């Protein structure tokens, strides 16, 4: 569980996050949505401790990030997995070495044990026979899957995903969404996904936070999103005709 209390973040005169408070539950896919420039990425980077908020506190379980010393933070990061927008796979390492990387860094496992674990997670993300390929030799969807495999290989407690299905075809995007959702339940992780893809939100959004201009404008789940009258979120979600029609049907069906 991650609890966020009133965090503020500015860059120079730009006040990006204006007092965000929320809770991300364990075993759920928590989604942060919002328009470009709403502060989603800054918020995610604050959770990852890549940016330090000027005010507010972020609790991982019951321990505030702001009270941790460098060693505690380093230990916390070993419990975090991150799926970057572009995958962020290491170009100089092959797929097997990329996925094995956190194990090599943080465990004392033997090479065979590490290899077994790598094959297990690669198989979990439906990737086989790619171990010796390099990131430049595989497709965008495969890169995302390798990135997910690398993020979960060390059994993290927290999984963060930045636009995990951007640049993917709709079918692969749904596969990636479902994969993240299944893995979240399977590993009982606290998963936070930064997205502006409404398909993802409708598919796996168990908790949804809508950010607007650095503040939480709406909070709920994927069933409540169709029923809300909050203008900010309806303007955002129903900018597509398809979703307007889905909403009409949902409302008619009660």
């Amino acid at each position, binding site marked *: 569980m991650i609890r966020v209390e009133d965090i503020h973040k500015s860059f120079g005169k730009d006040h990006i996050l204006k007092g965000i408070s929320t809770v991300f539950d364990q075993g759920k896919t928590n989604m942060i949505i919002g328009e470009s420039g709403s502060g989603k990425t800054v918020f995610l980077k604050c959770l*990852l401790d*890549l940016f330090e908020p000027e005010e507010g506190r972020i609790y991982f379980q019951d321990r505030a990030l702001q009270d941790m010393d*460098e060693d505690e*933070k*380093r*230990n*916390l*990061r*070993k419990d*975090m997995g*991150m799926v*970057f*927008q*572009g995958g*962020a*796979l*290491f*170009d*100089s390492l092959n797929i097997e070495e990329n996925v094995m*990387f*956190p194990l*090599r*860094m*943080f465990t004392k496992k033997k090479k065979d044990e590490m290899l077994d674990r790598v094959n297990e997670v690669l198989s979990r993300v439906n990737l086989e026979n790619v171990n010796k390929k390099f990131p430049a030799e595989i497709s965008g969807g495969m890169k995302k899957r390798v990135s997910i495999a690398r993020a979960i290989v060390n059994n993290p407690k927290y999984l*963060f995903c930045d636009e995990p299905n951007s640049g993917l075809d709709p079918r692969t995007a749904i596969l990636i969404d479902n994969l993240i959702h299944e893995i979240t339940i399977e590993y009982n992780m606290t998963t936070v996904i930064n997205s502006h893809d409404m398909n993802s939100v409708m598919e796996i959004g168990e908790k949804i936070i809508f950010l607007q201009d650095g503040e939480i404008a709406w909070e709920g789940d994927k069933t409540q999103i169709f029923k809300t009258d909050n203008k900010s979120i309806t303007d955002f979600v129903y900018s597509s005709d398809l979703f307007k029609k889905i909403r009409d049907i949902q409302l008619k069906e009660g």
Partner: protein
Amino acid sequence: MKYLQDIGSYFLMLGTVFSHPTKGSVLRDLIYKEIDELVINSLGIVAFISFFVGGVVAIQTALNIDNPIIPDYLVGFATRQSIILEFAPTFISIIMAGKMGSFITSSIGSMRVTEQIDALEVMGINSLNYLVFPKIIALLFYPFVIAIAMFLGIVGGWVAGVYGGYSTSEAFIRGLQNDFITFHVIYAFIKTFVFAFILATVPSWQGFYMKGGALEVGKASTTAFVWTSVLIILTNFILTSLLLG
């Protein structure tokens, strides 16, 4: 003001490079990889340039001597002094600022652009130690490159001098042995170690702190070459004044 900030940022980077070390077994593999990429892969171009520049130094020295009172061994002597004191340590380092420097900046800069450095940070790894420290250790072997440059430069001078008919082998070798001062070699290697540190760290700093996309990676590589060269030239002047002046 920006220059002061940059200098401060460079020294802060150095502090971080030597703190929170990466796991030993991983670091060892990274050092081997860097030795291969930075040192071994530079040998070909260094050997080629040294051999032919050594030859040119010998030919030009011979062509500019037409006074009969100047001893015939001067071609070998001048070639040795030019190669050991300046060409091998300083000018090879400036060439390496272009080759190694742009490689270091563009590889680290590309990692920055593609969020690979963020990925390291998120995992709790000291990315500066992971990326820069192995390069500094690998370039402790850089003096071997310079030793090869010295040897091949002199061989090139001998081949051009003797086979071009500008000197006899006996006179050239006498010139190489004449007035040999061991400290000149020590001075050259002291310079080389300092240049190696500059070659490893200045391009790394440029790559690590660059902002933007692919275009900025290219700009950072060019800037890295310029600043590395400037620092090598300045350090060369200071060390020469201190050690030989």
